[in-house]
């Protein structure tokens, strides 16, 4: 399934009640293709996270549409959109994004529990993901005991739990050492190879070596490199 953004913008008012608008994302047309890894570079404040939120169904665009396949995701009410996101879109948020009250295994299982699926099969899937991400031995550990690299791997494993067709990653290699960066990028590359549409927002220069399409974001606009 492709993820298509059609002329999307997001504008904010700088002063409450006034009319001092600025655009965090400006009229972007974008297609994240299935089976490809698209890398988007951009410095802080360029609008990358806003674009990810728009594409992930977390932030209503001021203008334009976001289509997952043929589905206009913002035409759905929140409950339906949330369920859709749970089923079809995996998101790896920026920074530490583990639920501290749950073990690593429970964190990875969480998307399937949110989707109302709880079975031994799901548990086996979560364990297999932990295995393939090299953190199987940490399944019963609490997230605060994990290193930064382990936390990122756990977050990617969790995003893949429901076998999403679209994977959106916001700086998944930020603050990681070179070795962990390579591990994470390879995992994303492998996921794209399985047919998932992967979008990677990054500062990491090395990422272009793993990407099929490379783009640059600046001042809310996107251009292909």
């Amino acid at each position, binding site marked *: 399934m492709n993820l298509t953004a059609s002329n999307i913008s997001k504008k904010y008012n700088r002063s409450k009640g006034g009319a001092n608008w600025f655009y965090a994302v400006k009229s972007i047309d974008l297609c994240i293709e299935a089976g490809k890894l698209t890398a988007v570079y951009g410095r802080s404040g360029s609008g990358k*996270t*806003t674009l*990810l*939120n728009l594409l*992930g169904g*977390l*932030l209503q665009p001021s203008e334009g549409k976001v289509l997952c396949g043929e589905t206009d995701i913002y035409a759905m009410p*929140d*409950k339906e*959109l*949330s*369920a*859709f*996101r*749970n*089923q079809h879109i995996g*998101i790896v*948020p*920026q*920074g530490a*994004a*583990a*639920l*501290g*009250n*749950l073990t690593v*295994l*429970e964190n990875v*299982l*969480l*998307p399937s*529990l*949110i*989707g*109302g699926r*709880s079975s031994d099969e799901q*548990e086996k899937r979560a364990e297999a993901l932990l295995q393939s991400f090299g953190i199987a031995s940490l399944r019963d550990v609490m997230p605060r005991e994990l290193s930064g690299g382990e936390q990122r791997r756990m977050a990617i494993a*969790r995003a893949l739990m429901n076998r999403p067709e679209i994977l959106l990653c*916001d700086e998944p290699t930020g603050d990681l050492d070179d070795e962990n960066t390579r591990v994470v990028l390879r995992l994303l590359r492998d996921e794209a190879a399985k047919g998932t549409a992967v979008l990677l927002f990054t500062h990491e220069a090395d990422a272009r070596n793993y990407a099929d399409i490379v783009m640059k974001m600046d001042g809310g606009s996107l251009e292909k490199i």
Partner: protein
Amino acid sequence: MMRSVYGLPVRSILKKPLRSAALMIIAAFLAFSAFGGSLMVMSLSNGLESLSARLGADIVVVPYSAASKVSYDSVIIQGKPGQFYMDAKYYEEIKNEIEGIDKITAQFYLASAKASCCSARLQIIGFDPETDFSVQPWIAKSYSTELSEYDAVVGSDVTPNADMTIEIYGKTLHVRAVLEKTGTELDSAMYVNTATMKELILAHNAKNPNQERAIDPEKVVSSVLIKVMDGYDIDSVVGNINLYVRQVKAIRTQNMIFDVADSLSGVSGMISVLMAAVWVLSVIIMAIAFTMMMNERRREFAVLRVLGVSRARIAGFVLTENALVTLVGGVCGIIITVLLTLLFNGLIEQSIGLPFLLPQPSVMLLTALITLLVTMAAGALTSAVSAYKISKIDAGLVLRGENE
């Protein structure tokens, strides 16, 4: 292993025991003040009703010397140990000369020294089985046979010897029944018939040879209780007694009850004001504490949004967590109230100096349930704003560490 996303609020409570305990303590305090206050007000009201029902007389006549309120009120209404006497001829005079009297009976009061049974002084009340209409109907609920000489019926707080006897002034009395609780000091009283009372007064005189004036049981009574005939105005009968019979004071019992009711209304009002103050303060503290705790957890809720939890369900998690915390805290508060009430029932009764009778267990249970619901509703109210705000968070911005 968590098997459902609905387990998240429980997990959150269990994994942060201090945070949860702090909220539970506030909820327990809310329930304690509401349930405790309600029990106090109901117990005072019950005590008054029991008092009113037990007295059964329209008019009480006491010696004029006892008419300083503290004396007769405390003895007749509250059952506090005390004694006063008037010439028995006044009883005959009222009976024979005052119109409108349906029933009339005399009572004798004797405040014993420390008896074998009791740690405090024991109030002995003597009644005439032939004419009594005040004590016997009440005693009949526990003991329907007429009392013989040296028989006694005791209040609920009096514990007789193992062989159901009590030693008073060297005389052995047989306890035939223990009465229902009244919530007054009458629970520490003992009831005997006139014949036994006369024997006890003689024994008392023998034990106290140095008292100023020996009591002659054949010539005195302590009070006269009157039931007015239908069609007669009680106030007129009171007025006639006070006008035509010297050395006595007739009082309408309703007025005596009103005096107690006035004090009760004051105490109840004070309890209600305190309860309201505690509630307002606790609800504000709970709202602030809950809002702060939820703000600290914005990142956690943002992650849930990212993973596909709807705004409505996020709000549901917040409300559920609060409901569970207030449920546990509320139940603890109610249990603490029940334990304290049962343990210090007597002390409360003594310290407020008003009739105090706990409601029936079924009423207490119903009150506890209502308290729990009200506590949980207050909790829901304090978390509603947090739930709304948390459900509206911009997950992307929160996870990036920026302010909305």
